């Protein structure tokens, strides 16, 4: 069972990507895919949206899985392993989660379940790079998310011009020169197959 997280700041398109990527990853029933979505609040919106996908879904509320409810996350992953035995678990943490902490929490479930870690895919919203990176507290958070990424998916590329996109890519590349950079549009589907290939071939 491979655990892959789709992280990134609030509003960068995580839920939309997860819904589409889960279908691409599942193929025609080749793989069993389960989703775990985490929202800080107790009134879920993303979970309700994902319920409509028909995928096996676990919704964790009441805190952030990278810290406050990390053990709940580990137990949830184990429960999925025990009851559903998916090939892939796609995890959507909150928009303020730190990817390496989500990985560490997921690894705790490896005490009881046979798991492997997929990549930390971090989305970066191409429509508002300055807003995300140039502010003090927010900038630190988003920078931490980007530097933690195994794959940086620059999202919403259909909504920006090519020169703006190149500037954005240069900025995130500077923060994390090691991660693979993927241009992503959940609207047109660009980048989706590449993310699928990366997940399937990832070994850690």
């Amino acid at each position, binding site marked *: 069972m491979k655990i892959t997280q789709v992280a990134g700041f609030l509003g960068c398109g995580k839920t939309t990507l997860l819904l589409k990527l889960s279908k691409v990853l599942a193929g025609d029933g080749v793989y069993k895919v389960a989703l775990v979505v985490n929202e800080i609040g107790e009134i879920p919106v993303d979970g*309700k949206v994902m319920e409509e996908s028909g995928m096996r879904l676990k919704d964790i509320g009441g805190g952030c899985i990278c810290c406050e409810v990390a053990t709940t996350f580990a137990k949830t992953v184990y429960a999925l392993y025990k009851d559903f035995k998916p090939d892939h678990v796609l995890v959507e943490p909150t928009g303020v989660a730190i990817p390496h902490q989500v990985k560490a929490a997921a690894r705790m479930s490896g005490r009881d379940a046979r798991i492997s870690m997929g990549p930390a895919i971090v989305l970066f919203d191409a429509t508002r790079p300055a807003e995300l990176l140039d502010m003090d507290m927010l900038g630190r958070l988003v920078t931490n998310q980007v530097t933690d990424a195994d794959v940086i998916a620059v999202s919403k590329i259909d909504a920006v011009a090519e020169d703006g996109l190149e500037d954005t890519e240069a900025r995130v590349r500077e923060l994390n020169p090691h991660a693979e950079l993927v241009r992503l549009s959940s609207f047109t589907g660009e980048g989706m197959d590449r993310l699928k290939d990366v997940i399937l071939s990832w070994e850690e």
Partner: protein
Amino acid sequence: MTDPMNTEKGCYTEHGVSGYGVAVKLTHEHPKDEGFIRSMAEEMMHSIAEKCMERGARCIGHIKSHVMTEAGAIKADTIGVEQGAYSSGSIRHPVKDLYMAVNSIVQGIREEVVKTATLEGVHEVAEGKGYVVAKEKEHTYFDEFDFTVSKQEYLRQLEKQFREETNGPGESKDS
């Protein structure tokens, strides 16, 4: 004006992100179709974002909603006033009752302010369209975890938390 030195719970925490979630039932005297409902939900998202910015927010993280009806569901959201609001989903036929979950996550204002802006936006827009609003459940929250902790320290805390939940607090030994 918001005091930048104010470290009261809910604002200017580690990332200064505050949130408010509310579940409401909206009832209209006459059944309304998908176009009407989508337009209202988008207008509501935009209105909440605008009210948060007017009250000193520095960034709209995500203002999102899910509208469930007997004839289908839609979602609507915005990441900022300038970016606009969008919706998707479908509602097969006109309906009177909507069950709506709204979640506002904003940076730079306290949770009470997010709550006020959200409720004002919900009421103004819905009531302006002829809906009666009944609040069912609400929740304010804030984010204050220390994301600057070292990886080693984080793992230590995680191990401790795991042992406590597995064995009970009395049996936890923090080695």
